């Protein structure tokens, strides 16, 4: 457990201080396990706010960011999303759904040999653009595609 915690800590220079804080119980496990949840970005009610929240206010369109989603979702509750970044030095990928009440779905940071790609399954309340945002060498890039959400069977 201790070793896991140590590798988890961000900014290892301060690890001594942090270790003290952990021991004192001042930090909750949430904060220790991973980087702190980006509340502002995840609770943003529109895409602009979510992008701002992850520091990507004006990402540039890129063909090297490949977003694979179905044109029509079989079920809005489970929409498969695959993102692959061919942009050199990509360090993170985020997935957003423009018309969801909270557009930001997830963001992944890669290190230690992880390839800049991710797949996840997301919920969509209605037909919307799905956006991928990649961070590479400090800059943000984006790709987007529309996914149609239709009704299911039986009408009742």
């Amino acid at each position, binding site marked *: 457990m201790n070793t896991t915690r140590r590798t988890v800590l961000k900014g290892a220079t301060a690890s001594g201080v942090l270790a003290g804080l952990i021991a004192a119980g001042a930090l909750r496990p949430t904060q220790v396990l991973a980087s702190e949840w980006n509340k502002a970005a995840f609770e943003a009610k529109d895409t602009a706010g979510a992008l701002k929240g992850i520091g990507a206010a004006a990402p540039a369109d890129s063909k090297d960011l490949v977003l694979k989603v*179905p*044109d*029509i*979702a*079989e*079920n809005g*509750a*489970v929409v*498969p999303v*695959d993102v692959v970044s061919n942009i050199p030095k990509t360090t993170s990928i985020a997935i957003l759904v423009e018309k969801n009440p909270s557009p930001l779905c997830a963001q992944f940071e890669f290190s230690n040999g992880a390839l800049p790609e991710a*797949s996840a399954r997301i919920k969509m309340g209605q037909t919307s653009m799905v956006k991928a945002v990649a961070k590479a060498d400090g800059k943000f890039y984006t790709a987007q595609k529309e996914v*149609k959400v*239709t*009704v*299911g*069977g*039986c*009408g009742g």
Partner: protein
Amino acid sequence: MKQNIIGALCALAVMGGASAQSPKKPVAKPSTKAAAAPAAEEKDAATLEFEKFRAEMEESNPAELFEMKGQEQWKAKRGPKNVSLAESCDLGQGVGKVEGAYVKMPRYFADADAVMDAERRVVWCMVEKQGFKFDDIAKQPFANETFTPDITNLVTYVATHSRNMKIAVPLDDPKVRDAYEVGKEIAAYRAGPYDFSCNTCHGTDGKRIRMQNLPNLSTPAGAIKGVQGWPGYRMTGGVMLTHQWRMGDCFRQQRFPQPKYASDAVAYLLTYMIGTANGQVYKGPGIKR
């Protein structure tokens, strides 16, 4: 002879009908120029699109989470008798053996003197071998968004161990054959306010309800489409549901009352449905819309 009786009866009925209502001018059926029904096996765009992701979705099917729990529960000593199913339950392949058991059920079990589908058999083992009470299991036998019964996990575990095997319901056993024939009649039985039977939706090729394709359960190719989805992880609500559940929900939509859990009626219907798929490869547990 028999025809005469019917003729007489019907004539009587018609006379009664005519006298009960004032005579009406017959309503002619106007000539039909309407477009023919869409071509068979027409897949909706969502299904076609989804099929591109099908392999990926099936490769990582959340059903595996339930299977994991089921495996644990199969092996654990449980119930008032503190016995594991692994050391007590015979699914037809020997005590504790799950490999290939699912695709060889329903079958006749002499110890229970009944034809049993996989779920019914596991329930029987839980009651007879582990000492659980049937009524407790039957109280809430199917999963919802907040609760997944043990039996669902167990059936998912058992089914997973028949993945990619051929369906082989022992229809040469007269008791199983009889169950198959009775099940076939249950599937054809029209009743209720809408005159529906199972076959209303599932007796013809190439039909769909709204956008959903309806497998024709009277053919092996159609029956396997229905069979291999179960047990299935349903994306709506994210719940794991069994073939027993599916039968009940069909009756619900038929506007019928509810079939009793783990009953003959459901076992026979499943014998017909799975037996019709004999020889086809089972690819479940499934992932459903």
